[in-house]
């Protein structure tokens, strides 16, 4: 297998199961060579991988490096590796920043919001995909509209206010829960790949719709639901503006607002700021390591359908 040039884009996309066999040819190769099985490591590919890791990991490592410096150290040498690591920054940041409650709030909002959102997506997407609900043609349009609704910050605020839910965790969770975005569209696409005979078989056996959803559809749709959940969760996790407007009590702030306010207050003390950022980032990375398996499998399943 030859490659024209060394750009990654020109590399073959081999599907799973085959060994990687292509070698990095000299850039001047032109004519395709006959396929041969050669057991040489694809150096070029590995170099690219290392570069990739550098681009994505170095910034985080730099953050860690800065977090371990005192302010004086940082001013003296912002870039170099820290010589006298100190954990005091972390202690200070934790004490001054209420990060414990920020992280907890973010988790509650994300899990709650994405959870409710996913449930809504399923409850709304399944009947539409199967055609069990009247008005079959307009619902997909409605779902598409969900994707690009206008920025309704102002009116969402007024709505929550009139419902008496301003500055309440419940109000915020409800507001982010409906940010389902592309979920329903994705879900309806997936459901179409489930054979309708399954529904009918379950119904013949006397299974009600509700039970069917929970016992049969849910496990089958798990990959798609996982993807939808994760997409919405990521959005909620990153959400900063709604939180600024809809929440007033500092105790209820999610990380985004809390960290940003911290930056506003201590913007010059990079060591402290970096430590605060690390406090927020580390649980994310750790949690991510655990769920990333589900993520890839989930998306694989969803898109295959």
């Amino acid at each position, binding site marked *: 297998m030859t490659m024209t040039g060394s750009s990654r884009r020109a590399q073959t996309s081999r599907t799973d199961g085959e060994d990687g066999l292509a070698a990095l040819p000299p850039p001047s190769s032109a004519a395709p060579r006959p396929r041969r099985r050669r057991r040489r490591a694809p150096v070029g590919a590995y170099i690219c991988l290392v570069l990739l890791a550098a681009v994505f990991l170095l910034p985080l490592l730099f953050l860690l490096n800065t977090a371990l410096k005192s302010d004086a150290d940082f001013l003296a040498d912002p870039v170099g590796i820290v010589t006298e690591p100190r954990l005091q920054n972390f202690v200070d940041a934790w004490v001054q920043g209420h990060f414990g409650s920020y992280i907890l709030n973010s988790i509650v909002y994300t899990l709650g919001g994405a959870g409710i959102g996913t449930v809504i997506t399923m409850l709304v997407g399944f009947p539409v995909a199967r055609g069990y609900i009247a008005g079959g043609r307009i619902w997909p349009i409605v779902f598409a509209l969900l994707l690009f609704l206008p920025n309704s910050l102002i009116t969402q605020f007024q*709505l929550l206010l009139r419902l008496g839910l301003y500055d309440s965790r419940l109000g915020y969770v409800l507001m982010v829960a409906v940010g389902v975005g592309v979920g329903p569209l994705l879900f309806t696409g997936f459901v179409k790949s489930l054979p309708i005979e399954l529904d009918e078989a379950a119904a013949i056996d006397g299974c009600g719709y509700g039970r069917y959803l929970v016992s049969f559809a849910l496990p089958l749709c798990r990959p798609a639901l996982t993807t939808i959940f994760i997409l919405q969760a990521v959005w909620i996790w990153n959400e900063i503006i709604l939180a600024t407007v809809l929440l007033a009590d500092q105790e209820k702030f999610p990380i985004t607002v809390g960290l940003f306010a911290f930056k506003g207050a201590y913007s010059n003390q990079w060591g402290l700021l970096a430590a605060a950022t690390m406090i927020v980032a580390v649980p994310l990375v750790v949690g991510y390591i655990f769920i990333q398996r589900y993520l890839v499998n989930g998306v694989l399943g969803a898109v295959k359908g």
Partner: protein
Amino acid sequence: MTARAERAAPVRTRFPFPRRGAVRLTFGLGMLMLVLFAFVPAVAVIVVSFTDLRGLTYVPTLWVGIENYLDFFSPARAADNWNALRNTMVFAIVGTVLQMGFALAISLLLNRPLRGRNFFRAVVFMPTILGVTVGGLIWSLIFNPAGGPMQSLLHAVGTQSAFFGDPRIALGLVIFVHVWMQVGISVVIFLAGLQAIPAELQEVASIDGASAWQRFRNVTFPLLAPSLTANVLMGVVNAMHSYQLTYVLAGPSNRSTQVLSLLVYVQAFGGESGTSLSQSQGYAAAIATLQFVLVGVIALATLFYLRRREARL
């Protein structure tokens, strides 16, 4: 074309379950939530755009008709609006192209059975998990003009830069960070699409003597088309609405990175310390509505174009 037939509206089938009540109730509840919390505010924003709502108690709100829209298109504002529009379009187009390009390349790389590729897959997705504030802070640190690593690198080659303060490159830097943060999701979606391509097709093509590039262009790329559509659409819409990252990196007062969504936020709630411009939230709602129309048009156009390419391929 078969593709189009597949995407036809769902046909109402016979409901196999004994009672309809359950499906109506659950669907109704779900839809109610969406209507109440998402659609009603959205429609209300359009309504508000015809008023001079100020978001203050005691200050009455008056109906002003299309005055807000006229204000938006007034020559005095033209420079600001074109600026925001241009920034938004540049951000959306360049950002999406770069994001797709890198995501495609990276997913091709990660699709190969290389060692430790699960680790690398995880690494690429991590910035998305970190979130805007963390990502924004990390890159603010790196692009610190007072001696951050980037500045030191530039010093080493003899130049220097004000980074986000330099109006020529500020937007470019924001796009870079945006791509860094978003490429993970696109990679995952592309990977899924790639793995759905049967291996036999690749083998057949190479037996026929196709070069790697030809194989990519004629086998891989066309079969990736649905993933590409989904990705591009999500990317464009996301980029057009995105302002959190810009807000964290460059602040609300930076003209060279001001995008439409940021304009809406700044006009509605203020944010320029030191100015005494005080717009009404009605005006902000008008901008939001205009942006909605713009995004809708562009998204539909993109969708239409991509679907046609898909079908042709």
